[in-house]
């Protein structure tokens, strides 16, 4: 069977989730590979969430928040950005492909762009292939 990437999308309640909702109501077509989890703010996303998603079998993790300056909580997305930048550097130096984790700003009016982001990320991950952290995990379970 051909490899279908599974992407976990953490979307902030105020902009990105509404943006994804707009993509739905305006019938934008995008790949079905993303599973969306709504959080109140992009700053709610602890790096541990991303790691858990990866080790539990996600091939990619997408973090979406409001554009800088638009955060409902004024500064949440700026903090998310710093955290995310450091997580990405760490994953990179440990040999995990950087493209598996992605941060995007999607506003409530960017339904079409949300579709484009998903399509682009799905293709990138399809090229990367299955997540290796997951592969190791399955091996472990067989071992036990």
């Amino acid at each position, binding site marked *: 069977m051909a490899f279908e990437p599974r992407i976990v999308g953490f979307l902030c309640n105020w902009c990105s989730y509404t943006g994804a909702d707009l993509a739905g109501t305006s019938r934008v077509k995008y790949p079905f590979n993303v599973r969306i989890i709504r959080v109140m703010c992009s700053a709610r996303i602890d790096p541990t969430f991303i*790691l*858990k998603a990866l080790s539990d079998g996600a091939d990619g993790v997408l973090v979406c928040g409001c554009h800088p300056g638009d955060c409902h909580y004024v500064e949440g997305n700026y903090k998310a950005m710093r955290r*995310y*930048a450091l997580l*990405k550097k760490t*994953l990179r130096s440990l*040999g995990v492909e950087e493209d598996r984790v992605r941060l995007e700003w999607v506003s409530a009016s960017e339904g079409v762009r949300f579709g484009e982001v998903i399509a682009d990320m799905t293709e990138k991950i399809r090229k990367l292939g299955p997540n290796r952290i997951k592969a190791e995990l399955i091996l*472990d379970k067989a071992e036990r």
Partner: protein
Amino acid sequence: MEALRKKAHEIITGGQVKVIIGYGEGSPERARAIFAQTPAEVDQLIFDQRCLQNLAVYLMKPEVKALGKMAITASKNVLRSILQLASENQLTDADLVVIGITDDGGVIEFPNLQAVEEHIKAAGTPAKNEDRARIEEIDKKPLEERWQYWQEQLSACVKCYACRSACPMCYCTRCTVECNQPQWIPAPSHHLGNLEWHIMRAMHLTGRCIECGECGRACPLGLPINLLTQKLAAEIESQFDWQAGMSLKVENPLSTFKPDDKENFIK
């Protein structure tokens, strides 16, 4: 060493403190920590090249705190740890007396934590240790080799959490790794979840790690895990111009921001 013991005698017999945390005779390779409570015990205090352990870790242990007011013999790494702990509201002047030690065993007296801050600031930017070069070397390898290298290293980890116990900054009474609802990180001493544990540990020490390398020294398997925390310390230094343990009042780089933070990593 004589100056150190003299100073230690002075504060213990004067009743200023109840316990002095310092180094004592251990094995030929390593000195161990001792907790001197009587003048006889003070005479066991030593300081030489073997005294590498970051003693600041004991300032956070409830068993040591229970002994009463503490004094600590502090080399430069310990001084920076103390500053970082104080900036996180974990230590005040009422808790401890700091006895600074220079590399050759001389004593520096600090009337309060403010003086420690001035001393550290006057010494300027700390010199980079050789671990920074090792980090760069690993980062230059191709992705596949980096993955193999770290998998090889981290798969040996048995999650004994010696790294956590040895780190002055890991003082949470309940660690994320002990949460099981949800279970963020698998708990068995098995290489399942090792990658996640080490990334999480490093992330939690971001902007707080003073690069003493104690986690690496404490690891019974000799894994170079200090490189992970030091990698992040190097990152925040270059990206946010930020160094841990340099000041008494400072915000963590992850709980603050600048409107002009770089976004060039977003693709």
